[in-house]
């Protein structure tokens, strides 16, 4: 059960294979793969820069994933989130969940993705052809 933040690319099929083999006696593997979108308001995104508060991201992720796990039963999970410079089409977040029954796996996948997408201490800057701008928070 691990969370990783990394600069290097996420190779979905190899991570899925490794995780599936590691959890070969689980009844289901659920997955979510988030990607960098190529456009924002019809403007072409050249690349994305992600800055994060590493210590707080690990601390808060651990705390909030434990809260989700207190209500459901899963066998294992792997969450990888990238930071640094990312280009459109690249994978940004991968969530893999192994569980005996699909319902718990899907619930964990949904809740953890929602938390990461809204709450993790990350800030995104989109770089367009002529300018760059920080992505606005949902809480602003």
């Amino acid at each position, binding site marked *: 059960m691990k969370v990783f933040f990394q600069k290097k690319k996420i190779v979905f099929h190899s991570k899925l294979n490794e995780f599936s083999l590691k959890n070969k006696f689980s009844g289901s593997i659920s997955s979510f793969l988030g990607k960098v979108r190529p456009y924002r308001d019809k403007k072409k995104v050249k690349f994305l820069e992600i800055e994060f508060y590493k*210590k*707080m991201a690990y601390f808060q992720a651990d705390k909030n994933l434990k809260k989700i796990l207190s209500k459901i039963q899963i066998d294992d999970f792997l969450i990888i989130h990238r930071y640094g410079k990312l280009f459109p089409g690249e994978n940004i977040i991968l969530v893999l969940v192994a569980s005996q029954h699909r319902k718990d796996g899907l619930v964990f996948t949904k809740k953890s993705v929602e938390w990461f997408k809204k709450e993790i*201490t990350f800030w995104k800057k989109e770089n367009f052809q002529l300018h760059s701008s*920080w992505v606005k*928070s*949902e809480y602003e």
Partner: protein
Amino acid sequence: MKILYFAQLKETLGKDQDIIQLKSEISVNELIKELILKGGKYKECFEQMKNLRCAVNCEYITNYNKSLKNKDEIAFFPPVTGG
């Protein structure tokens, strides 16, 4: 004590952290006042605290009367945009 800055705040201040030595415990409010007194970009950023969030030792705080010690790590940043 370590004071961390992120994202737009880091860009505006032109630095990602300050290290200060506290002679005695101070509150977050008092620290913010000290930062404003530095003037320039600090004044500009910390007078508008409504646009900033604050975390002490990786926990969000809303009570700015919380007292700070030298071993604490305090962070100021704009609302997060998530992953």
